[in-house]
């Protein structure tokens, strides 16, 4: 049936739920339940990760289309089916999700003490939703997973979060939901036009230009919030600050990629004219995000907020890359998404380590940790450097490819879009200096211990990946090379015969420039 010989995608998607079922059967006193829930969740997620490696091994890099396809009829009369498959764009995000889940579970090992069983269940459900979303090839299935992600995440923030968790959880939920409703409309409109929700079919359906314009805006509302793009980004810092460490990790690592993935899966291939037409708008918002978020990050006094704003700035670069419609630009965007998934996850974990020890995220409460925690300081430096895009780390490859893509569009986009090169080190090194460097004077910092074996186990794979991706990125780019090449070719084909646009739309375009 596919290269793996068994429905691997469905297995990866639904296996975590099996783990949930096992956790629910656990009985006993509270401590036993908590301990068993942790171990079951960890083993489940590790098995899922092991299974997902099949995708890495069995991948055929020469096939630009979907691989490991599965299809079951569901609502055949309405053109809706249960269809799964991954192409170059989605495959590595499946692996990213399955990698980060066990790391998150390990990171929550000691810091989560209340409702441990429920917490682990929430995380496993979250994994199902994330993986399902990246694998879904039917719009309805996609939409269900896409929205489904919100629920466990909402609970993780709202139940296990910090003092203002309820406000943050609602803000997160409402911002993202507001956009999603519009996407549902777009879904309905597309279904009405094409009589199917099959994504591969929709990708080859030509929508009229005027319709594309409105569909694009509807998608844009949903994905822009998820990315998040300026000015709908304000839910992110709040959500991050209140979320538990693992929640932030998954939010930054995977959930932020959903918006950008949506652009690549729907907007660019299905709505080529509208995408090209509205690209200047995206570029403007992205450049604003790059500068705005970086400046705001500079002023932060809360470590998590700082990292959250840095995510906004990085994702701004990603959206520039996507809308260059250029082989290097889109590959760069994919690479940066992947790299950001590793690095921002790691940075939130880095913050989590000292938060677990001192229970404060306030930067001013730290200083001089290098003296007590040299290994921690070393790892922190590795991730800081990867975050500022030092060549030889994963951050550089994506940013540089995007610079090339942006330069294809115009000089100023390349220059302004790369401003993160200067602004990035300003806020990250300033953070590093205030936390790690300086004289260790505060009495409660003297007793801090360096990383424990469990923590090293969390960071080691991320640090190795950040360097591996930087030194030998070809082992990752090979996954999407064919897909992106085909995507760009199709985009150029679609643009070769531009349909006439109604005057009203041209006006809108003119104002957006």
């Amino acid at each position, binding site marked *: 049936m596919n290269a793996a010989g068994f429905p691997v995608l469905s297995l990866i998607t639904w296996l975590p739920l099996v783990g949930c079922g096992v956790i629910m059967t656990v009985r006993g006193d509270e401590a036993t339940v908590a301990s068993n829930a942790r171990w079951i969740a960890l083993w489940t997620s590790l098995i899922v990760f092991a299974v997902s490696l099949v995708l890495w091994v069995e991948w055929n890099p020469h096939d630009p289309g979907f691989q490991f396809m599965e299809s079951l009829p569901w609502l055949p009369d309405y053109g809706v089916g249960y269809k799964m498959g991954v192409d170059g764009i989605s495959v590595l995000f499946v692996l990213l999700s399955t990698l980060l889940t066990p790391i998150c579970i390990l990171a929550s090992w000691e810091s989560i003490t209340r409702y441990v069983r429920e917490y682990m269940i929430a995380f496993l459900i979250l994994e199902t939703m994330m993986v399902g979303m990246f694998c879904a090839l039917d719009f309805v299935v996609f939409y269900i997973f896409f929205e489904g992600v919100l629920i466990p995440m909402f609970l993780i923030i709202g139940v296990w979060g910090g003092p203002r968790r309820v406000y943050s959880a609602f803000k997160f939920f*409402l911002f993202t939901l507001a956009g999603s*409703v*519009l996407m549902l409309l777009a879904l309905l409109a597309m279904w009405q036009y094409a009589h199917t929700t099959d994504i591969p079919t929709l990708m080859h359906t030509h929508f009229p230009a005027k319709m594309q314009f409105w569909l694009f805006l509807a998608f844009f509302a949903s994905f822009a919030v998820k990315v998040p793009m300026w000015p709908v980004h*304000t839910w992110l810092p709040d959500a991050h600050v209140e979320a538990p460490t693992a929640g932030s990790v998954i939010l930054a690592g995977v959930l932020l990629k959903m918006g950008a993935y949506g652009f690549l899966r729907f907007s660019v291939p299905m709505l080529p004219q509208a995408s090209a037409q509205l690209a200047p708008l995206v570029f403007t918002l992205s450049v604003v995000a790059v500068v705005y978020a970086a400046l705001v990050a*500079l*002023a932060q006094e809360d470590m998590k907020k700082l990292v959250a704003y840095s995510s906004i700035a990085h994702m701004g670069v990603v959206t520039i890359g996507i809308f260059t419609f250029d*082989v290097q630009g889109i590959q760069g965007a994919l690479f940066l998404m992947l790299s950001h998934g590793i690095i921002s996850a790691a940075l939130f974990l880095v913050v989590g380590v000292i938060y677990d020890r001192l229970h404060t995220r306030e930067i001013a409460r730290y200083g001089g940790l290098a003296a007590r925690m040299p290994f921690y300081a070393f790892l922190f430096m590795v991730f800081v450097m990867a975050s500022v895009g030092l060549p030889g780390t994963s951050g550089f490859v994506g940013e540089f*490819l995007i610079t090339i893509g942006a330069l294809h569009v115009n000089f100023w986009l390349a220059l302004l879009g790369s401003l993160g090169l200067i602004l990035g080190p300003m806020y990250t090194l300033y953070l590093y200096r205030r936390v790690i460097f300086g004289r260790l004077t505060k009495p409660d910092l003297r007793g801090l211990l360096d990383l424990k074996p469990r923590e090293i186990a969390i960071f080691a794979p991320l640090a190795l990946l950040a360097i591996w991706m930087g030194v030998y990125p070809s082992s990752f780019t090979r996954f999407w090379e064919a897909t992106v090449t085909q995507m760009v070719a199709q985009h150029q084909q679609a643009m070769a015969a531009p349909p006439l646009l109604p005057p009203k739309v041209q006006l809108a375009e003119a104002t957006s420039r």
Partner: protein
Amino acid sequence: MIYFTAVFAPLLGAMVSGLLGKWIGDRAAMAASVLGMLVAAVCGPLAWVLLEWGGAPAGVMSLGTWIQAGSFHVHWALRYDALSATMVAMVSFVSMLIHVYSIGYMAHDSFRRYRFFAYLSMFTFAMLMLVTANNLLQLFFGWEGVGLCSYLLIGYWYDRPSACAAAIKAFVVNRIGDLAFAVGVALTFLTFGAVGFDAIFSHLAQHQADTYHLLGASFRVYEVIGVLLFIGAMGKSAQLFLHVWLPDAMEGPTPVSALIHAATMVTAGVFLVARMSPLFNLAPGALAMVAVVGGSTAFFAATIGCVQNDIKRVIAYSTCSQLGYMFLGEGVAAYPASIFHLLTHAFFKALLFLAAGSVIHAMSDEQDMRKMGGLWRKIPITYVTMWAGSLALAGVFPFAGYFSKDAILDAALASHSAVGYYGYVMGILAAVMTAFYSWRLLLMTFHGTPRGDHHAMEHAHESPLVMTGPLMVLAVGALSAGFLLHGAVLGEHWQDYWRGSLMIAPANHIMTTMEQLPGWAVALPSVAGLLGIAVAYWFYWWNPMLPVRLATQFRPVYLFLLNKWYFDELYDAIFVRPAFALGRLLWQTGDATIIDGVPNGLADLAVDGSRGAVKIQTGSIAVYAFVMLIGVVALIGVFLIWG
């Protein structure tokens, strides 16, 4: 293979000492690091000798794929040609000496030393990757790698706030140049479809007429690339406007200043322009900019060097100024002269820094020259080597600077261009000041009455052999390098030495005309140097009250120079503080009030409305309903418009 070992032995040393240092201890880590460097220091010069005189063929050693995306291919590779091999020989040799010196210098440091040696070796590796790069992107890898190590080493004493601030400043200011560099590399790819040097140089003729539209005008694309790459070089090589990080970088341990902020890293910009010489030859506008910025920096930094009191800062500004000379030479297309000056400068400037370090070591970490004086009897070896370095820097025959610096000035004059003449005048003025501040340093430090506190003077002692040894080796280099090499590197057979790794446009005969200048022009730089020395003796030997009187009489000028032309204050007011203020403003007003005002207001509205109308509803459901309502309205709107 020898070449490969030269590049990767320092990496191995760095990894052993850095990753295992905590467990194997400082001594073993230090041994690993120094051993790696010794191996490199044998292999590097050997590879150079084999290439130049042993008949080994130039070539490229491929190490594997790096980035591959569509038509963008970049490989890891080591380039083995005259320029790279010369640089590798110099970098590995000087670095080895500085590693050895550091054993003594860092012996009494309060921190664990494995970290220091790991950084130092890591730096050397990155620098070697930079000079052996076969494409612009790998060069950028080394470029940023040395930047990282420089950051780590400037901030090595991380418990000092000034060191941390200087480290960040160095990184960020460099990144300003790097932004232009990165865009320049991207533009190179767009123009040539490749970033490998051979691919670029072999297609130069095809794209010569290409233009690039910018700011409403159209420029030749080579000019744009040239200017962008040069802005990158300005950051790394601390040229005017982007120089502010270099003096502050003196916060690092002195061996670091010698290796990174004098001999190797800061010359990376000069190397970049030389490496891209075939392209720069076709970009006369960019070259003119190189010459003007170089000449101006040479003059500007020298003026500041004349009044500084910190012994390391004097040498730092001197470095800045000498880098200006190198760019001036490149600006008039005399690349061999610039690279030659780069090499000799590496020797005598590393020497000056290490000797200064020896002085500081002797004076129990005192760096202010006003608190020194009369030291020459206490530390004779340091004194003599410092003389050697100063003679070389001032360009006194037959020391190294005489051959290399004068060659640049000759070339500037011989270029018969406006920018050349400008650079020449600036260079001659700077030469007077160079000699002046060098002898000011010597006289203030080693002669006159001891002004240090009694305790420090009592304890002043010559450094151990592990430190004076490298000083003596470098002194020999400062004495002989110019004399021995100038014939091969600059003489009429310069092309046999460089073998196409440095290209001068065929119509440009600068290398010949600079040899045919009138007698006064040849003598002038030496006269300028001797004049500067004489003035220094007059000021600080015969008439020590004169500088004080001058400083009081021309107080505004003095303060202007002492405060480094107020660049730091200016940048702080224009860029740094506004950035922080803007950040706070955007955060508190932009995010919290304006952007969040809308959804929070909507939520409040909905909550209030629902409370009033339907008591059983909770606020959240109301918001949900409200959003749905907006959706329905939009839906209707959309279909209406389609209709």
